[in-house]
């Protein structure tokens, strides 16, 4: 069988930028102190970082993910500052950085009047344009560094409360080194009509990126946040270890959408977790198209009665990629409900793993969960595995689980070809059909973007 080849040229360019500050590779307490000083942070944050670093140093590398042993944490530079001032209008953004974003099509997205665009270039947020209406309603949407300075009470109250610095090795690393990321606060009863969005981009080689996002939806608030990522291809591995924390108070609804398209040399180790209070509803839509290794399991802790979770995970693994993705739903109160859907595609020796955990402890009466995992596999070199852990000790729980592995073999391709449809177009149709459910749940702009990414990835499928 002929090999399918992936073309991701569009994201494969690199700008030569003079970094204002760039730390030598490697990690120490001094690096962390320096980082905090450069940022001019209050003492409590510096302490938080140093404390997290202790956890990080003590914890062993997780051994349950294949391929992590190849990651050398001393080979990575932990902070780079591309521009020392934040811009509030597109004109102020340095030209080279602008060019990068132009190539990514971000200003176009902005022109189309989306809620607010925040772009993060390496570690520093360089562009932040929150539309006036958002401000008027009391919505806060800024980078997390600014939030530490401008909204210290809010940050102090919630930062590190959902994902503690001691949660896992990479959450500890992030807590010690975090830089950038988005901070969102939506006041009581406010519904944000347009999705808020941010693009992240790793430009420098061997750069660790540790963005930290915190979203707080107050009682009855409603917000959708969209994040798209891409990174320039380098031969040396880059590390992306983000932490995302969401707090959905009583009756709030938060939808968090990610399209991760890091280049294929990035280690993408992300901790994403939400707390859902009474009748709150949290949705994670998480698409992983890029990266060398992804380990990401968006989770929802349903802490009070009536809380709901909906997690949709999409993974696409081509040659040399391993997407270890999944979801966690922790039912810690009665009448809570969760839906987990996973769709994964692997080809050319790519590997996908679904890893999920559902917990319904005794006492969480009348709760329900439904888990569906579908995998699509293109050839015998590729591999897909499913680890759907369930810890159900409540008798009244309603649990359903389904898994399927589909193979798009030679016969399927030939069938489409026999009707005049070229092989790559046919594969495209199958892939888009397979993930169609996901596309329907994306805002229009991102549905198009996702479609396009899949097409790019499938282009040149056969020579």
């Amino acid at each position: 069988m002929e090999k399918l080849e992936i073309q991701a040229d569009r994201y494969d360019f690199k700008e030569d930028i003079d970094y204002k500050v760039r730390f030598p590779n490697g990690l120490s307490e001094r690096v962390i102190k320096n980082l905090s000083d450069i940022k001019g942070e209050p003492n409590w944050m510096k302490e938080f970082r140093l404390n997290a670093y202790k956890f990080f140093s003590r914890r062993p590398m997780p051994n349950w993910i294949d391929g992590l042993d190849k990651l050398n944490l001393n080979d990575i530079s932990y902070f780079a500052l591309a521009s020392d001032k934040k811009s509030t209008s597109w004109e102020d953004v340095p030209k080279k950085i602008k060019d990068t974003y132009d190539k990514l099509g971000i200003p176009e997205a902005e022109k189309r009047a989306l809620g607010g665009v925040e772009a993060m270039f390496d570690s520093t947020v360089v562009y932040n344009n929150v539309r006036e209406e958002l401000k008027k309603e009391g919505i806060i949407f800024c980078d997390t560094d600014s939030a530490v300075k401008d909204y210290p009470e809010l940050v102090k109250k919630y930062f590190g409360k959902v994902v503690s610095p001691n949660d896992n090795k990479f959450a500890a690393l992030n807590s010690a080194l975090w830089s950038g990321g988005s901070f969102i606060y939506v006041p009581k009863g406010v519904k944000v009509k347009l999705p808020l969005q941010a693009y992240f981009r790793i430009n420098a080689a061997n750069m660790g990126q540790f963005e930290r996002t915190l979203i707080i939806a107050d009682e009855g608030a409603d917000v959708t946040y969209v994040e798209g990522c891409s990174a320039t291809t380098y031969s040396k591995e880059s590390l992306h270890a983000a932490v995302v924390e969401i707090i959905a108070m009583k009756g709030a609804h938060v939808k968090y959408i990610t399209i991760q398209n890091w280049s294929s040399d990035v280690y993408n180790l992300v901790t994403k977790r939400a707390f859902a209070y009474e009748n709150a509803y949290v949705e994670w839509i998480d698409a992983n198209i890029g990266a060398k290794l992804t380990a990401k399991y968006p989770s929802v802790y349903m802490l009070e009665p009536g809380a709901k979770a909906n997690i949709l995970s999409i993974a696409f693994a081509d040659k040399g990629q391993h997407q270890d993705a999944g979801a966690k739903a922790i039912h810690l109160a009665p009448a809570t409900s969760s839906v987990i859907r996973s769709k994964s595609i692997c080809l050319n020796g790519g590997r996908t793993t679904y890893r999920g955990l559902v917990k319904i402890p005794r006492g969480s009466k009348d709760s329900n969960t439904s888990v569906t995992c579908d995998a699509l596999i293109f050839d015998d070199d590729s591999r897909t595995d499913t680890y759907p852990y369930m810890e159900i000790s409540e008798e009244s729980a309603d649990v359903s689980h389904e898994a399927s592995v589909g193979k798009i073999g030679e016969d399927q391709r030939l069938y489409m070809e026999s009707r005049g449809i070229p092989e790559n177009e046919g594969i495209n149709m199958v892939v888009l059909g397979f993930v169609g459910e996901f596309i329907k749940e994306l805002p229009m702009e991102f549905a198009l973007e996702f479609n396009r990414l899949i097409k790019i990835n499938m282009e040149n499928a056969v020579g």
Partner: protein
Amino acid sequence: MESGVDIEKLSVRIKEKVLLRGVSLHVKTGETHILMGPNGSGKTTLARAILGDKRYTVTDGKIEFNGADLLKLKPHERARLGIFVSFQEPVALQGVNTLSFLKTAYESVNSTKITTSEFKKIVGKYLEKVGLPESINERHVNEGFSGGEKKKFELLQLLLLKPKVAILDEIDTGLDLDAMKALSSTVNEMLPETGFLIITHSDRILKHIKPTLVNVMKDGSIIRSGGMELVEEIEKGGYKID
């Protein structure tokens, strides 16, 4: 110039196994060729070779369409030239919407673009003819289709794509009486513009279709060619003919 497919001394193998040994067949527009033969004699192999299935290796001979070398072309390019090969066992395409599949095929074969509403009208007409419900448009290609429905869906695509030469691999097996009628009337209506190679095990289809030539395949060779009398012979005595 007459148009059609010319198969000349074709030999095909899969891995080390020889499946066709010097098969020759000429299917011109306006002609109906019947291909019969015992299970495993190589009928589907011939269809697959015409389609361009890479798993079958052509070791000798040629397949031409209007003088052009088909063996050099990919399957979709052959389809675009006007070759249609139906599947003995049509495969399901998980998640692929039937209507958009048909539309993509239609647009690809005709090198045109068509609006969905226009296209729906065309398909609607053919759905009625083959006896499939309109609701099939919303389903996934061949997913959960009954055996007969799959064959009707092949027939629908034949009508839709209007090929110059159609190779129908046991399209008649599993069809009910009404669908059999639809099949033979389709063949007769398309005949002036199309040449047919119909692979079958039964004489049911020959009730309303007048064959140009009946061919019998055995062990990868065409051992007999003739008229309807050959079919009657087979119906009586099976394939113990030489």
